[in-house]
């Protein structure tokens, strides 16, 4: 590579190849990323819209958001959109915070686990996507329809215990079908 001409030509060809392949992969990557992000984005907007109309938008509103779906992605989108509302940190009840199903977390296997989260973070509201396991823990009969968003109010979060009055502490304030 002594000759500057050969050097320049090789580099020019390399740039040509890189630019061409880059343009092709970029268009492909943007399309893939868009198709992957469009649905979660729309769903998060819908959930945020319903919650924003129902709950007071202020820091004192502490919410436990149980989406049960995609390891944090939907959680962070909704938390971003509903900012002044305080969301109970995801990582405090689900580790590692990427991948996996929310309901498989140890905290949601017993009433005592749920009660301790609610007491610790003084949770006033629970937003949960319809899930039979969770609803049966709360003592609520699951309905037949799938894809439901249920908003609960917790009556006395600081004195909640896993006792006989457990199920009466949750008051359903709204049910919306997502599809």
């Amino acid at each position, binding site marked *: 590579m002594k000759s500057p001409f050969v050097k*320049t030509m090789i580099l020019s060809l390399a*740039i040509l190849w890189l*630019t061409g392949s880059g343009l092709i992969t*970029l268009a492909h990557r*943007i399309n893939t*990323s868009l198709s992957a992000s469009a649905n979660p984005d729309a769903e998060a907007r819908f959930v945020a819209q319903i919650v924003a109309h129902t709950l007071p938008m202020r820091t004192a509103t502490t919410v436990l958001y149980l989406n049960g779906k995609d390891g944090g992605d939907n959680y962070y989108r909704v938390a*971003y959109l509903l900012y002044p509302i305080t969301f109970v*940190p995801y990582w405090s009840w689900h580790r*590692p915070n*990427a991948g996996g199903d929310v309901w498989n977390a140890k905290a949601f296997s017993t009433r005592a686990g749920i009660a301790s989260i609610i007491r610790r973070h003084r949770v006033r509201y629970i937003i949960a996507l319809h899930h039979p396991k969770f609803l049966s823990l709360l003592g609520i009969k699951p309905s037949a329809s799938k894809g439901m968003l249920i908003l609960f109010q917790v009556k006395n979060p600081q004195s909640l215990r896993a006792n006989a009055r457990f199920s009466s502490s949750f008051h359903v304030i709204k049910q919306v079908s997502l599809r």
Partner: protein
Amino acid sequence: MIATLLFFVTVIGIGLLLDPFFAHMHRLERLGLAILCGSVLLPFLLFFASAYLHILPLAKTGVGVFFRSGVTVLALASIARFLLSEIRALRAPGRSRSAPRKKRRVQISVMISTLSLIAFAFFVVIGIHTRLFGWDEYSYWMYAAKVLTVTGGDIHALLPNAYGSYPPGFPELAAWNDALQGDVSIQHAKWMAPLYFLGALTLEWGLFKRYQTSTSRILIILALTVWGCQSYDLFTILAYGEMPYVDLYTPGVIYLAFSMRSKDMRDLNTGVILLLFSAFLRVDGWIVAGFTLVLFFLFNARQVLTAVRAKKRLLAYACAALPILLWNLYLLHHPTLAGWGTRLTLSRVDARLPWPFMSRVLGAMWMTVSNLRVSPIMAVYPLLIGYALVKRNRALWFLLAVVLTQFAYLFTAYMTVFSSFEALHASSLDRYLLRVDPLISAGLFFALYDEKTTRVWATMSQARRRAG
């Protein structure tokens, strides 16, 4: 549009406050440095006002309005000062352009590299108007910016977040942008990464020009930088804190390499300042800046010892480290809920060392490195080692060593800090490799174009005098 323009003007104006230190440089280099320095100084001012002066700099009333207009006036004044001095310099007889440009025919390489840069710019403009949101945008960077905007710039409001220990450089800047736009939106913030990148490329252009590289060669190097690691295209259109960090860190290392070659203390100063500034933009930035400087010391102990002997210079370095130092001082008094650092015990790390786990981490890293998007620049790396062996260029060796150390550091981080899920997939590695790409293309400059016989002039005026 006006708000975006005002954002650019304030960032550049605040950055130009440091211009007297860079007065000997090429004009484009100074402009690039103004963008990069402004992108640290402006958020630092906001952070300082909130954490140490206890005022809300982005509040819509009272002292917030006073603070914001003060910053804007300061930026405008510094731009006016810069423009006036430039006009005066153009008029001065001794400094006027003497040699008229010769007409040359357009080279094919110039055409190809210009077109490839234009194609990149075109895709960035289209990309930032796409409604594409990355995970890190709403999970932290833009979330933090929203928190800061809504609370009027109250830095304490960030502490309960999972990323509370992250230095607030990028979120503060995005919040400043939100405040100017009068609206919280991820879409507005997408202009920021291209601005930083433009700053870094402008700076590199000026730097190579100052070292008497021809325009065609500079264009080739820049086109290779932009397309060599094809993660740049995607991450330039996302508002991630990673991009500004890369754009501050890599020019810093390139300055250090040039100072090693030319023995120019002023390049050394600029490199150190950029590295120390970059620590304010990333949670482990101070570690990376630290090992880069240690590596530089190993390569160039004599120059560093001479540099450190001057008290004035030490003071300048200490001032450049102020953002990250004051941030750490703030964290000392305000512990965060969760922070960056290892959550693993020694026995857990020990359990990761045996073969199955480690080989999978290494395999995932190799998958990313050999991926079509990153492979071009990685394929050049062994070639450069060959060049370095033949040419015995210390600056080239230094750049190659920094790249190797980055890999070693990232591997260590995956093994000790990341959760096993992230480690096994080498998550985000394509993003982390961005900071290696400009170093390899700068290495290409040292390997292909750096003739040892060329004498380097410390200043433009010296070079012009010699040429005239």
